[in-house]
């Protein structure tokens, strides 16, 4: 038996210690073999990494002492072995399938990555054997696991378990023993994939009659003759002449380059958020300016000096600037982008994530996005019955059915796919699917046993399109024997075929024929070129339907997307029947009558007709489309006013991705250009991730609305005092903006209950009339009332009763008047009055802050009750607390209060706004209750549901 098994898997060289009877102990011969393999692999360009593993449940038990060894050469051998590990220039990965002892453990430290099974342990009993620690372990171990652990292992024979190894950093991953190989190889494939991307593409070409076997693609020029073979990427536009190609164009001049250039030239529409904010800013400016004009007119009419008027106007305009908006937007977009990355969604363009919330139409790819991009056996038809593989009873049915055995044999034999030694299957997608299916329900090895038994005679197995096979069959397998084919059977088979084909499955029929051993003895020489064996009178075994199945989570995702009022269209290059079937299966189409437009139809449509078609049919599937037609579809949708998201992976998709409001590229299958143009990259190519994005996007917009509402509310108590001052001539109450943090932290709010149950915001602005009504008519007024109440209270406590304040301003603000009389006859000097005014302003400010804090709580939700949502947004909680502390700081810190013209208030003045806070909360809850229950015939919703 071979003690070292060397296999190649793609570009990976696999070395397996194979001496299970001795627990894979390594002898001199094995050392030499491994050394040689490693040294060859080091200089072999076809090898990118080497994987070490062992047979059985032991990785290796170290040196094999049972084999005699020549003393002098032995050290040389060992030295070369270790050296081969140390100097190996490529990736070295160990899959440790069991305990690794002695030199097997020390060489692990020289590997780049180690995956171990749970039952593995690492043991280096050098001191027990009274030898020095070998393999450079005294150097490598302390580096990997630290001095202490290394000493424990190398000096005191500690047996390190896999778990401990993982914790101490000796190994990378631990898997269950039965999963080890598959999981480790999954990881290795991943690594290989990242390798491929790093390797610059090269090609073989003839230039000036000289053969270049390794020319980088980027240096190809016009006129080079390129050699290509199956599987190569075509490096430039070439004209093919007998499996060689003459380069016609390269770089940007190629067809692909032009597409990429088109993508670069196309101007994407400004994002919906940008549009919204621009509009909001415009309205805000108009509002602030008109307020300014009103104030200016009023104050000039009332005879204020020009300077005073200017100050009013500037104050008014500044008060109206929503200063918290920009940080709020940035914070919520950044936060969401970070959260989305964790959910496998890379957001390149921050505003795209919000745009995703506004999406009204999604144009999705089929293959890879909606489906798994992997053929699978879905249905089996055997004698008048269709079995679904997805059926939970399928496995038990399978056990008793005779015909299925035949199908297994037939399927296994009649296949061009090959099972590689490592368990992978290589071959055509359908063949692979069939073998995969057989593997899943039976061990392929058993199939070969059946074959052995029947070796006494030949059997013809055949598979192919059902109509071809059926016409050659005379019998059919039933559960307990064969029956001659009747018209009924034929009809049933035809029906089944049609049935399966209609659901978009690829249909294959299986048949066999046992040849008479007399006519075809063992020595019979079959000739497949000139067929010398019968292909008529076959026995029909069954029909198999294959399909690229939809991803499991897609159906649910599409259901949610549709519930959210978003239209999903499929744009695929597949056959219309397949496309339609998949559309129905994933829920893009709800009836079989969904509208399918092929690429040819599309080419003949005028843009008006396309527009009308999009209007008329809600469920549309585009089949057999070329990728460039995507752009046409996207533009047509946008003409309708839709906000369009497009998924795509190819270079050809780039223009559509760029043109779309949100371009979504695929992380795994996506091309570089598509990733560059896209706004969002789905790292797992999964449609369901888009739904998360939509939810997040809508949440952002909701939270922005809340923030804006919150910010605007505080404008009211900033603006109205100026009017009070001008119109009623009372001394000026003031407000300072301390509500920035709470405004920003509203973007940390969780999504509301209805976020995915309402249609996309179509023409639903960031700031609506309803919000303004709520802000200026309701919440802001309550806040203002609270402030004024606090203001009047402090005034009254000092002797100025409210009634006496109206009209007092002229004497109050007159510096020359040293004796303004209050309601109780006391006379106030200018300085005393101004100090009182500061105290009142500070009370007003605190009252506004306290009510504004309650407004923060109210703005947490637009729809839900606070009771249900709770105060779980700790950023907001801290923000509110901070607002309060800041406000108090402004009032009480000496120096600072002078600078901001505030005043250290009496304790009881801090609580004046409490009744108004309570009113705010009660009113807010009442309002939301009405909105949820749609009380008063939904009239209230119309009024204030922003």
């Amino acid at each position, binding site marked *: 038996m071979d003690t070292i098994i060397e296999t190649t898997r793609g570009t990976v060289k696999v070395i397996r210690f194979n001496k299970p009877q001795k627990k894979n102990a390594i002898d001199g011969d094995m050392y030499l073999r491994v050394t040689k393999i490693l040294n060859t692999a080091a200089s072999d360009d076809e090898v990118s990494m080497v994987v070490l593993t062992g047979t059985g449940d032991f990785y290796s038990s170290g040196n094999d002492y049972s084999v005699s060894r020549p003393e002098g050469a032995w050290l040389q051998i060992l030295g070369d072995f270790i050296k081969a590990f140390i100097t190996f220039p490529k990736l070295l990965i160990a899959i440790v399938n069991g305990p690794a002892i002695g030199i097997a453990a020390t060489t692990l430290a020289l590997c780049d990555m180690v995956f171990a099974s749970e039952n593995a342990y690492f043991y280096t009993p050098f001191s027990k054997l009274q030898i020095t620690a070998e393999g450079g372990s005294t150097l490598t171990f302390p580096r990997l696991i630290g001095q202490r652990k290394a000493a424990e292992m190398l000096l005191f024979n500690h047996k390190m378990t896999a778990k401990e190894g993982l914790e101490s950093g000796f190994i990378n991953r631990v898997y269950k023993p039965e999963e080890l190989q598959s999981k480790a190889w999954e990881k290795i494939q991943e690594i290989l994939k990242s390798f491929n991307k790093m390797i610059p593409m090269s090609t073989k070409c003839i230039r000036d009659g000289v053969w270049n076997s390794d020319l980088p693609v980027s240096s190809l020029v016009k006129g080079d003759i390129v050699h290509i073979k199956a599987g190569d990427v075509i490096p430039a536009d070439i004209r093919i002449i007998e499996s060689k190609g003459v380069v016609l164009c390269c770089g940007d001049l190629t067809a692909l380059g032009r597409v990429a250039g088109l993508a670069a030239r196309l101007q994407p529409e400004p994002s919906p958020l940008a549009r919204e904010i621009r509009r909001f800013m415009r309205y805000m400016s108009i509002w602030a300016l008109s307020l300014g004009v009103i104030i200016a007119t009023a104050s000039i009419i009332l005879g204020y000096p020009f300077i005073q008027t200017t100050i009013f106007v500037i104050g008014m305009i500044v008060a109206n600037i929503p200063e918290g908006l920009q940080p709020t937007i940035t914070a919520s977009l950044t936060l969401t982008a970070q959260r989305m990355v964790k959910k496998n969604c890379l957001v390149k363009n921050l505003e795209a994530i919000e745009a995703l919330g506004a999406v009204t139409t999604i144009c999705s790819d089929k293959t890879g996005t909606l489906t798994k991009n992997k053929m699978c056996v879905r249905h089996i038809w055997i004698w008048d019955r269709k079995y679904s593989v997805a059926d939970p009873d399928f496995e038990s049915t399978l056990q008793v059915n005779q015909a299925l055995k035949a199908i297994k044999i037939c399927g296994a034999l009649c296949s061009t796919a090959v099972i590689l030694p490592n368990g992978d299957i290589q071959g055509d997608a359908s063949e692979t699917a069939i073998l995969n299916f057989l593997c899943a329900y039976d061990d392929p090895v058993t199939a070969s046993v059946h074959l052995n038994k029947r070796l006494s005679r030949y059997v013809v197995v055949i598979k192919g399109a059902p109509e071809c096979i059926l016409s050659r069959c005379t019998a059919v397998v039933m559960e307990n024997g064969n029956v001659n084919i009747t018209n009924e059977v034929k009809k049933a088979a035809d029906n089944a075929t049609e049935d399966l084909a209609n659901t978009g499955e690829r249909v294959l029929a299986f048949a066999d024929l046992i040849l008479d051993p007399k006519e075809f003895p063992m020595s019979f020489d079959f000739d497949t070129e000139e067929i010398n064996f019968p292909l008529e009178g076959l026995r029909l075994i069954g029909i198999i339907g294959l399909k690229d199945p939809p991803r499991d989570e897609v159906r649910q995702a599409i259901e949610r997307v549709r519930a959210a*009022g978003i239209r999903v269209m499929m744009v695929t290059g597949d056959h219309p029947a397949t496309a339609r079937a998949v559309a129905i299966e994933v829920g893009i189409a709800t009836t079989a009558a969904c509208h399918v437009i092929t690429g040819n139809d599309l080419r003949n449509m005028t843009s008006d007709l396309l527009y*009308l078609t999009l*209007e*008329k*049919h*809600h469920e549309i599937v585009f089949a057999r489309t070329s990728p460039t037609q995507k752009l046409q579809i996207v533009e047509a949708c946008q003409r309708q006013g839709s906000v369009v998201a497009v998924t795509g992976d190819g270079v050809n998709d780039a223009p559509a991705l760029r043109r779309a409001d949100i371009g979504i590229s695929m992380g795994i299958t996506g091309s570089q250009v598509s990733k560059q143009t896209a706004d969002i990259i789905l790292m797992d190519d999964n449609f369901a991730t888009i739904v998360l994005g939509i939810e997040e996007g809508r949440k952002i917009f909701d939270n922005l609305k809340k923030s804006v509402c919150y910010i605007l509310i505080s404008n009211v108590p900033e603006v109205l005092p100026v009017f009070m001052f001008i119109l009623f001539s009372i001394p000026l109450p003031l407000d300072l903006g301390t509500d920035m943090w709470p405004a920003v932290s509203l973007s940390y709010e969780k999504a509301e209950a209805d976020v995915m149950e*309402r*249609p996309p*915001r*179509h023409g*639903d602005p960031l700031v609506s009339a309803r919000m303004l009504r709520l802000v200026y*008519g*309701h919440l802001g*007024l*309550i806040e203002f*009332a609270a402030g*004024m*109440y606090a203001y*009047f*209270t402090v005034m*009254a*406590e*000092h*002797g100025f*009763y*409210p009634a006496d304040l109206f009209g007092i301003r*002229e004497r109050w603000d*007159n*510096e*020359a*008047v*040293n*004796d303004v*009389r*209050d309601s*109780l*006859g*006391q*006379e*106030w*000097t*200018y*300085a*005393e009055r101004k*100090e*009182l005014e500061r*105290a009142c302003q500070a009370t007003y400010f605190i009252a506004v802050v306290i009510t504004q804090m309650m407004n923060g709580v109210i703005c947490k939700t637009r729809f839900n009750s606070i009771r249900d949502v709770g105060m779980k947004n700790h950023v907001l909680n801290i923000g509110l607390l901070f607002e309060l502390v800041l406000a108090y700081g402004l009032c009480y810190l000496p120096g600072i209060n002078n600078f901001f013209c505030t005043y250290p208030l009496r304790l009881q003045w801090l609580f004046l706004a409490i*009744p*108004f806070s309570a*009113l705010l909360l009660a009113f807010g809850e009442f309002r939301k209750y009405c909105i949820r229950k749609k009380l008063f015939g939904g*009239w209230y919703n119309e*009024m204030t*549901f922003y």
Partner: protein
Amino acid sequence: MTVKKRPSDLTSLERFNLYYREKEPPLTAGQKAKRFIWNPKTKQFCGRTASSWSKISLFYFIFYAALAILVAICMWTFLQLLDARQPKWQLEGSIIGTNPGLGFRPTPPEVASSVIWYKGNDPGSYQFWVRELSNFLKVYKRDGKKAGAGQNIHNCDFKLPAPAGKVCDVDISAWGPCVEDNSFAYHKSTPCVFLKLNKIFGWKPVFYNSSDTLPQMMPDDLKEHIRNMTAYDKNYLNMVWVSCQGENPADRENIGPIQYLPYRGFPGYYFPYTNQEGYLSPLVAVHLQRPKTGMLINIECRAWAHNIVYDRHEGMGSVHIEIMIE
């Protein structure tokens, strides 16, 4: 939030209308505005029908009424807790503090101005000031006594302070030239300016209890005056003294001799002010007997007591008056 109906959901008639009905010609801005104000088709005024307007008015009426009631309840409760006769915060507890300011009459008509400016030979010019002073002194006139306030008035003396509930009289009739009948001497270019100390609820002056411990800052003539007065009667120590001076050396020259009426200060029996019915602030009439004409005279008047703090910049314990007679 309204859901936009999809064309596929529409009936065939609706769809027909959607695509084939003749579109109305677009309205001009003026027409649009007109239709917004009154739309005869839908009977909408400013975008709302009558019932919609009434609903919205009712809602806002209720809402604002509720808000107003809350404010009213809060305010009313609060005012009930206050004493109608005395401020909640007094003296040190109040922002008004314990340092009464000094005020003067007549008040100049211009905002933030303290200039008394008139032409001595032009009755139309000084009439304004005379009228201003007459108005101010109206409450002091005994013949205009009102029943309620008048009963409270009591003729006080240093030995005879006002009994509880009574207020001391301020008799302005015998103040020499500074009487209304004499036009407060304005026509003679020797104007009278009335000084008053701000009322602070409960404030009592702390008098200089001896003529030997007067502050150094006090003008010598006042010191002299105090010594003379107290030598005559110790009770005169219970006085908030007043001094007026030109601010700059030039002013001091220009200001000429000054006569203070009736006393050179506010007698102590007027204090404390406790919002008594009919309380009259004590006054000092400052008569400039020979001011220089044709130039602006800056005058600073100070009130003197232990507990009156002086700060010229803050205007504490003093008042700044400018006089210009042409």
